[in-house]
């Protein structure tokens, strides 16, 4: 690992990137106070929704309040974007935590404002967070309409609270406020996954999500502690301007083993710890298992939190503290490897699932893996670009799936639905779903294609990361396959449908609190819904859902031009390269494919170009070709192959919803599909390796506590009691006994006097 890393770094250093003075964010300038409205408006929505809950409002009022507040927040965000200058803006609402000590000569303090650090990275994130949140809230107003008067207010309150927390996370000007947002989104995720709180599976999933996230949070917290201890501040602006920090960054950029040795071990530990936090929140390899289970929540939640925004917080963290990540030789390599492993693993699991929402969940995990791999191979631009595009098309996909689920009474099994896109009223859903699938599959010229491509190309360019590139390429094919497996089976082909087990109304948890989604209990009618399948009429989505789907689909096209705006990486690249995430990989310097310039500003580009020519051979290639030049074609072809395979296996000649040509292939693969369907038994493995031993340990502790710790205490109490019990029989209550004792006692006493006092 270290050797590999050293290779990478030497390569980078040689490429002229090692100039620490080349990196740096401009000093922050004070920002306007109204920025605070961005988180404040969702908070207002929380308060209003809570009031609705208290006054038991039985209309869609909470939804409209939420949509209104979020839209206003989006507008403010736009204004903020338009107000952006080159320097980050700082805006402080009030002092949150402030502890100071030290002498007057060297005052020390732990200072965390409730304040905002606005740079282009923040803007990028906040734009799609507030924008998507507004759209999805609109969608949810219809989607959740069955719960009006019941959990409607609760849902929107938590939804708004999520947006508030996310805003805190993204806009925070210090790591502790980021931590607040970080845990806040975790809480909202918990509350919203557990929205159907009568379903034990939902409660368990919520709990799992929260605890898994907490594991990551611990890493993040320790990372923050370490940053604070080493650099004496948790505020970005001060951290990035800190002399010691810049000096260490300089050592890292020099890249030789002597210079690495000048960075203390605990500083090298910081990115590792932060990474753990990012892995937890963004569902990366060891900690990803909560995300698929999180699909127990209502679909808008899945779309917003578990696909578009919250799960990208890990990416945001790494992007925000990208400089810190440079301080360890192995941190980014680990990020790349973990991301790749996650991408592949989740893709393989996704291929074998039948629950379409779960497939989308695994695809999210897989795509997050892509983003991490992108960060790991030094293309923060690519990663952020992918976050951006992914947010749109994955939200679109989820919402389309949600529309299906909504219309077919919770039915999500792709073996029980077919040809939905051709049914009356479902055309829009079908088309928008196709748009989303094409994006996800990386169909050429679509937004998803460009962003994925950037990561793939960079993986091949970065020295020592070739394997990562190949695996990611393979994953791209797999992604195309399973995406279109869903599309071909559910939206096209012969028309067929079976309602799910929520036929009384979508998500009608008051009727029956049990059960998951309907892939196991079709056919055997339950006692509480006696109607036959043919009585069921799917109800197509209404205007709100359709509107949102169309807007999102349009947006996924609309962002394509952004790819070509500005310098390298398009508009997103611009945004990223003006932020603390600005870091350009060497390969990007000589990539003039779309006429883009360099990511990291002018000073950077000179250094890059000057050193480019004679260090070129150290950079990776794709089969001897320039990755950026050929990757568009290669990845496009791979995507098309995946789609083709899916067509052949799942659409061609399929006559019913349940069977397909792919079934014939399954026996040839042996137990592998079953393993993949069971998620490679990772959950069981964790359960066996961590949960069960911990549970047993807890019981042992409980036993020890009662028997040993308390036992010793009780023993101390029992001893005198036992002594008393031994002596007590001598107190027979018989008068004679006492008299004999008394006489004998006097006799003995006198005898003593007699013998002693001679």
């Amino acid at each position: 690992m270290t050797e590999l890393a050293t290779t990478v770094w030497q390569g980078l250093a040689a490429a002229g990137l090692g100039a620490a003075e080349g990196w740096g964010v401009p000093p922050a300038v004070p920002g306007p106070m109204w920025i605070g409205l961005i988180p404040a408006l969702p908070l207002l929505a929380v308060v209003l929704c809570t009031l609705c809950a208290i006054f038991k409002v039985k209309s869609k009022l909470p939804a409209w309040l939420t949509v209104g507040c979020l839209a206003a927040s989006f507008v403010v965000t736009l204004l903020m974007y338009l107000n952006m200058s080159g320097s980050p803006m700082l805006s402080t609402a009030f002092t949150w935590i402030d502890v100071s000590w030290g002498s007057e000569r060297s005052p020390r303090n732990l200072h965390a404002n409730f304040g905002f650090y606005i740079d282009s990275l923040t803007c990028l994130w906040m734009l799609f967070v507030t924008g998507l949140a507004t759209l999805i809230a609109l969608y949810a107003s219809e989607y959740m309409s069955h719960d009006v008067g019941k959990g409607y207010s609760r849902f929107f309150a938590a939804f708004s609270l999520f947006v508030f927390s996310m805003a805190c996370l993204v806009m925070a000007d210090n790591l502790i406020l980021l931590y607040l947002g970080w845990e806040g989104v975790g809480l909202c995720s918990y509350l919203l996954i557990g929205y159907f709180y009568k379903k034990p599976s939902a409660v368990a999933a919520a709990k799992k999500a929260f605890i898994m996230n907490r594991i990551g949070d611990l890493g993040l917290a320790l990372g923050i502690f370490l940053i604070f201890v080493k650099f004496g501040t948790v505020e970005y602006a001060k951290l990035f301007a800190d002399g010691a920090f810049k000096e260490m960054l300089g050592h890292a950029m020099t890249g030789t083993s002597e210079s690495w040795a000048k960075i203390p071990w605990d500083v090298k530990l910081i990115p590792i710890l932060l990474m753990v936090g990012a892995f937890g929140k963004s569902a990366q390899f060891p900690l990803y298992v909560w995300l698929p289970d999180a699909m127990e929540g209502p679909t808008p939640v899945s779309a917003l939190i578990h696909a578009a925004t919250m799960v990208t917080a890990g990416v945001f963290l790494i992007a925000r503290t990208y400089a810190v990540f440079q301080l360890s030789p192995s941190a980014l390599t680990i990020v790349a490897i973990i991301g790749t492993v996650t991408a592949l693993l989740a893709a393989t699991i996704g291929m074998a699932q039948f629950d379409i929402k779960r497939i989308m969940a695994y695809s999210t995990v897989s795509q997050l893996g892509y983003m991490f791999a992108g960060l790991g191979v030094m293309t923060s631009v690519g990663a952020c670009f992918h976050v951006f595009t992914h947010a749109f098309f994955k939200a679109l996909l989820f919402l389309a799936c949600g529309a299906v689920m909504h219309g077919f009474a919770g039915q999500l099994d792709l073996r029980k639905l077919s040809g939905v896109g051709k049914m009356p009223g479902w055309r829009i859903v079908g088309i928008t779903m196709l748009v989303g699938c094409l994006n996800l599959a990386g169909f050429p010229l679509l937004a998803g294609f460009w962003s994925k491509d950037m990561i793939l190309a960079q993986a091949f360019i970065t020295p020592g990361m070739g394997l990562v590139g190949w695996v990611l390429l393979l994953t791209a094919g797999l992604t195309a396959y399973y995406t279109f497996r869903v599309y071909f089976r559910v939206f096209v082909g012969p028309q067929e449908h079976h309602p799910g087990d929520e036929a009384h109304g979508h998500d009608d948890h008051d009727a029956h609190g049990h059960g998951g989604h309907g892939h196991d209990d079709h056919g055997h009618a339950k006692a509480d819904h006696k109607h036959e399948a043919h009585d069921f009429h799917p109800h197509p989505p209404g205007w709100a859902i359709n509107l949102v789907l169309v807007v999102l689909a349009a947006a996924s096209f609309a962002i394509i031009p952004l790819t070509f705006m500005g310098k390298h990486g398009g508009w997103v690249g611009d945004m990223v390269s003006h932020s603390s995430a600005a870091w350009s990989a060497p390969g990007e310097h000589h990539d003039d494919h779309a006429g883009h310039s360099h990511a990291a500003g002018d000073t950077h580009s000179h250094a890059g170009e000057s050193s480019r020519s004679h260090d070129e051979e150290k950079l990776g290639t794709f089969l001897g070709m320039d990755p950026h030049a050929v990757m568009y074609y290669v990845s496009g072809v791979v995507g098309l192959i995946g789609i083709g395979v899916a067509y052949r296996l799942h659409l061609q000649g399929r006559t019913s919803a349940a069977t397909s040509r792919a079934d014939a292939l399954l026996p040839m693969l042996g137990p592998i599909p079953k393993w993949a369907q069971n998620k490679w038994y990772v959950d069981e493995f964790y359960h066996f390796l961590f949960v069960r031993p911990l549970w047993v340990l807890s019981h042992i502790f409980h036993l020890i506590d009662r028997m040993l710790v308390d036992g010793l205490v009780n023993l101390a109490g029992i001893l005198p009691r036992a002594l008393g019990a031994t002596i007590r029989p001598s107190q027979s209550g018989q008068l004679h006994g006492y008299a004999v004792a008394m006489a004998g006692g006097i006799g003995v006493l006198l005898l003593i006097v007699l013998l002693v006092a001679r």
Partner: protein
Amino acid sequence: MLASWMLAQSDYPIPMTNLTLGHYLFVAAAMFAIGLIGFLTRRNLIIMFLCTELMFQAAGIALVAFSRYHLNHTGETFVIFVLTVAAAEAAMALALVVLLFRRRESLSAEEWGQMKG
């Protein structure tokens, strides 16, 4: 009458030496021992009380003998108090005995063992 006759037989008051005191004290001790033995062996509550009276007697003899030896009246005074206590004790104890007897129809001391802890 008897007393004056008895007094006439000796040169009253008898000169008391410590040897003569020893005689009385031995009698007192023996009587005390007998009372004690009775208290320990007999099971009838009334007899047990009689035995305590015996012990009072023994104490009385010793007190009077010392009183005589020292030629003052303190010992005799104390015997009066002993008498008082004996009387009080007899009144109370016998009342209790009657009470207990009514309850259990028995005078055995062993019937009453509720004092145990």
